[in-house]
Structure formats: structure tokens, C-alpha cells
């Protein structure tokens, strides 16, 4: 599939920064002594901000407050340095996309998109075309259908397309991809990330899925009971969060820099890099539509094979040299953590393998995984 996102004329008013302070504790303003104020600052330029937290932590409420959709605002909101605390939602540069902003079900999906283009007062700010957005969200097959007849995943793609066409420069995605299957989600991530990097839009993404957040966010924020408990770069947050209780499936995140495309094999070649410092170890992954200069790759712990010797005669393309920094014996498997060029790679192996290989902390080791 070929697609062009012409970002040259798709110039937006770029939102550099969202700053807000939440009043916690008491909702009555005159009891100011018990009111805590928590201030936050989101650098938005070219980045996707992730928001994570347990159910009921106030993620949706926070996004709706930022979008100006809640009447009783217990939040002081500044976007690009301008105060939006009392601004009506249509003047707020953030567009909320989630379960509470469904498609207009009395219209076809195309009419949803056309009406948004026609009526939105932000529309002139960037000029993503309808056909461009339809291709971007893969809506071709069902765009003429009535919005009430679409599946959940189709509706979600429609909602994102509609938000992109509204012309607002910031999308607040509230579990907005949750009903899509993973290959589709990964394609959407790459395209949204590309729009971000090109300065067309900025994105804040709420998700339960650490895998989703790890693969496309740059900064991650954790909410608990309406409070921001942590905010940092995703790469440094995610390893902490993985060791907590909220692990859906074990994986590690490696930061890599683009080297070259090997088009004849449908592969992209990267090198491991951390904080701009490139190493000599190569990582091959399946070619993507838009290879980024620096990006992240998620590696399932179960798919990593450990070997004491460098491997040159198996089908595994990736063979990274590292040092064992942790061995954690679980009930029916062993979790081995490796330090590979100052990045953490996790492998799950059986107790039998651990015994046969006689692994211990500090041992040099090779980790193997497939390119696809």
C-alpha cells in the first residue's frame, strides 16, 4: 500500500506545550487549605505523550478537562501560554477522541467527515484532505456505510479520521485504538507518529496497554486517583512499570537508529542507540512504511533465545551481545534480564535451560531473536 502524507502544505498551528494544574482534595473552592494543586507541563512538539493508570484513575476526566468538555473545571489550563480554563470546547485547540465522542450515527461515515470539514471553525488551519485521511485510516471499504452499522474498530478509525479533519492541532486519544487488531494498530501508530513528527498534529494518548504506549509515546505520565504520580521519558518509565503488577505480557523496548533499508529482503537495518550514542550492534526489523531516524522496537520476552556463543548459522538475524544483570525465578519460567549497550532486554527461559546453561549474573551472553 502506498500512501503519501503531504505535510508541506499541511501546516498547523503547532501546540508546543500544555500546562495545567489540577485542584485535588476538596471540590469546594473556598476550602482552599485542603486543596492541593498539582502542576504539570506537557511538551507536545513532535511528540506523543502517553497517559497510563489503573481504571478509575481519572484519565478520561483529565482528557475531557483539557478539551474543555466538563462544566465544573477543577483544572487551570494553559495551552501555548494562553489561558483556556474557561474557554468553550469549540475554541479549545484540543480535540477529544474516545467513547464519549461517538460518530454521528444518523449519517454515513463519509457525511461525518464531510460535515466536520464543512462546519469546523478550525478547518482552515491545516489542510489534510478527506481522501488522504480516508487512506490514512484505511476507511475505503466502509466509508459510504451508515455510521450506526460499523464495527467498533471501524468506528474508532472513523472517529480518528474525523478528528484529523477537524483541523484542531492536538488530538486527545482516549483508548481510541483499543478495538483494533494489533497489526492495524501498529500501522495507525506509525502514521500518527509520522503526522506528529511532521508537525501536522500533536497527540496525547491514554491507553491501558503498555505495549501500545511503549511503541509510540515519547513521554509517559502515570495517574492515580486523579493525581499525576510520575512523568518521565517513556523508555525510563516503562521498565519500572513492567516490574510492577500491571504487566500484560513481558516485553522489552530497545531504542534504535536507522542505518539502511534492504529492500530486496523487506528489511530495515538499525543500530542500537541510546541517547544519540550509536553502538555497532545491528538490529534487523521488517520494513515499515515510514522508517524513522530513531525509533523503538518491542521484543517479547518469550521470543528471545539465549546462547553462550555468537550465532552465525541459524535463521535468527538478530544476535545482540550483552551481560546478565538479573535472574528472577518464577513459578514455571525464569526471567533473565540482560544489559545490552546500556539498554535492558528481557528473556524468558525454562528452569531446565537455566540449569543446563549454568547462567549467573555477570556472565556475557548472546541474545537471539527474529527480525519479523
Amino acid at each position, binding site marked *: 500500500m502506498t500512501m503519501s502524507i503531504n505535510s508541506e502544505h499541511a501546516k498547523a498551528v503547532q501546540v508546543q506545550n500544555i500546562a495545567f494544574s489540577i485542584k485535588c482534595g476538596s471540590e469546594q473552592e473556598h476550602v482552599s487549605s485542603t486543596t492541593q494543586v498539582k502542576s504539570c507541563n506537557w511538551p507536545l512538539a513532535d511528540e506523543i505523550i502517553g497517559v497510563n493508570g489503573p481504571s478509575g484513575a481519572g484519565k478520561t476526566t483529565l482528557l475531557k478537562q483539557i478539551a*474543555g*468538555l466538563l462544566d465544573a473545571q477543577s483544572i487551570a489550563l494553559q495551552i501555548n501560554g494562553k489561558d483556556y480554563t474557561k474557554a468553550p470546547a469549540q475554541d479549545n485547540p484540543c*480535540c477529544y477522541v474516545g467513547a*464519549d465522542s461517538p460518530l454521528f450515527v*444518523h449519517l454515513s461515515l463519509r457525511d461525518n467527515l464531510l460535515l466536520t470539514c464543512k462546519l469546523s*471553525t478550525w*478547518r482552515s488551519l491545516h489542510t489534510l484532505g478527506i481522501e488522504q485521511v480516508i487512506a490514512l485510516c484505511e476507511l475505503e471499504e466502509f466509508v459510504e456505510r451508515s455510521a450506526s452499522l460499523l464495527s467498533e474498530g471501524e468506528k474508532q478509525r472513523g472517529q480518528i479520521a474525523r478528528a484529523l479533519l*477537524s483541523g*484542531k492541532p492536538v488530538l486527545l486519544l482516549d483508548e481510541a485504538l483499543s478495538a483494533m487488531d494489533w497489526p492495524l494498530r501498529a500501522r495507525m501508530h506509525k502514521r500518527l507518529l509520522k503526522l506528529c513528527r511532521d508537525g501536522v498534529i500533536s497527540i496525547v494518548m491514554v491507553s491501558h496497554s503498555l505495549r501500545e504506549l511503549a511503541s509510540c509515546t515519547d513521554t509517559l505520565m502515570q495517574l492515580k486517583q486523579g493525581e499525576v504520580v510520575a512523568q518521565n521519558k517513556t523508555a525510563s518509565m516503562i521498565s519500572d512499570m513492567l516490574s510492577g503488577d500491571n504487566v500484560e505480557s513481558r516485553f522489552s523496548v530497545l531504542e534504535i537508529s536507522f542505518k539502511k533499508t534492504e529492500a530486496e529482503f523487506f528489511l530495515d537495518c538499525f543500530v542500537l542507540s541510546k541517547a544519540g550514542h550509536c553502538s555497532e550492534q545491528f538490529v534487523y526489523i521488517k520494513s515499515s512504511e515510514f522508517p524513522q531516524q530513531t525509533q523503538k522496537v518491542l521484543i517479547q520476552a518469550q521470543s528471545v533465545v539465549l546462547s553462550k556463543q555468537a550465532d552465525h548459522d541459524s535463521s535468527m538475524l538478530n544476535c545482540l551481545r550483552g551481560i546478565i544483570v538479573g535472574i528472577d525465578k518464577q513459578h514455571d519460567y525464569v526471567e533473565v534480564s540482560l544489559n545490552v549497550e546500556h539498554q535492558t532486554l528481557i528473556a524468558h527461559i525454562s528452569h531446565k535451560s537455566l540449569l543446563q546453561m549454568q547462567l549467573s549474573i555477570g556472565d556475557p551472553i548472546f541474545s537471539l531473536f527474529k527480525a519479523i
Partner: protein
Amino acid sequence: MSLFQIDWQALILTLKLALFTVIILFIIGLPIAWFLSRYTGRLQSFCEALIILPLVLPPTVLGFYLLIAFSPDTWLGQAWLGVTGQQFVFSFAGILVGSVIYSLPFVVQPLLQAFRQQGQQLMQTAQTLGIGKYSAIINLLLPAIKPSMISAATLGFAHTLGEFGLILMIGGNIPGETQVVSIALFNHVEMLDYAQAHSLAALLLVLSMLSLTLLYKYNASARPRLGW
């Protein structure tokens, strides 16, 4: 004047009354329903009860109070006389006001439910997409609740066709002015003219059945909203 002529007059008067009632009810019912769908204050239950009241009240009770309130020796009756130059009781305007109140719940309730179901969410969605409030109401909200508007209009119309007690109380029985089909039917029965009564009764039956059948046939999505 033959009986046949009087019946045509009654039918046309009935249709005219029903049509005017629906038009007036739409003009006042849409804002009332919109306001009620968003109002959550202390008087919410009271307001809703007030709107629903004509549904459970015997029409004669409503008619009686209107008759008392607008009798020519009250200030309300005087004011009406001053503005319209006509007495309220025993006039077409009188029965029109009566039937507007009487059919109010049939029009407001479906609209209220539609606004409650999708009003707020749809308006919020439109606003977060950068669409202004009035533009959203005209271009999105009203088209979205069209099925409910059609069912409100049909119910209001069909219900007005069947009015009897209220009109008899306020309007009396003046051919061409206040004598609607249901009252003409009553006259025929009183005079033991069953043949004529039959034709009028059948006409009302067919008219009401037809409007409801058309409503369900072409407005299937309004179906669940007819439940109270």
C-alpha cells in the same frame, strides 16, 4: 343544512385544529424539551410532572379550570378579550389553547427522550470538533432527532383528533367554530342517527390507525421512543 354538510365542516375543523396544535407545540415544545433535558435543578421532578400531567388528568378537569380561568369576568378573560377581540370560551382559539395543553406531553416527551439520549453527547462531540453551538444544533442535532420529531408530530396530531371532553367543556358545540368530529359523533348518537355516527366513527378510526401505521412503517427508529 344537511347532516352531510355539517360532518365535512367538523372534519375540516378537526384537521385544522390538529394541524395548528402540532405547529404551536413544535414551536414551544422544542425549547421546553431542550431546556428540560439539560436542567438538573431542584424543580426537575416538578417540571417533568407538570409536562406529563395532562396525560393522566381527566380532560374535563383541565377544561373546567380553563373555563373558570378565562371566563369573561376574570382578568385573564378580559385580557384575552382585549388582545384577540374575541371571547376565549366557545371560540376556536379557546379550543386550540386547550388542545395545545392537552397534547403537550405527547410532543414534549419523545423530544425530551431524544435530547436526553443523544443531545449532550452529540453537542459535546460537535464542540470538541470545533463546531459552534448553533451550527451544531441546526446541522447535527435536529437532523439526528428527526425520527423523534416525526413521532412527536404524529402522536400530537393523532391525539388531538380524538379530543372530546376538553373541547366540549371550553368550546361547547358550535358547528364550524368548535364542533369537532368527536363531538359531531356524540350528537349523532344522541339523536339516534347511527348510520351517520358509524361513518364518522369509522373515519376517525381509519385516520388514527393510518397515521400510526405510517409512523411505524417509515419511521422504524422511532419505535422504542414511543414507550413512556
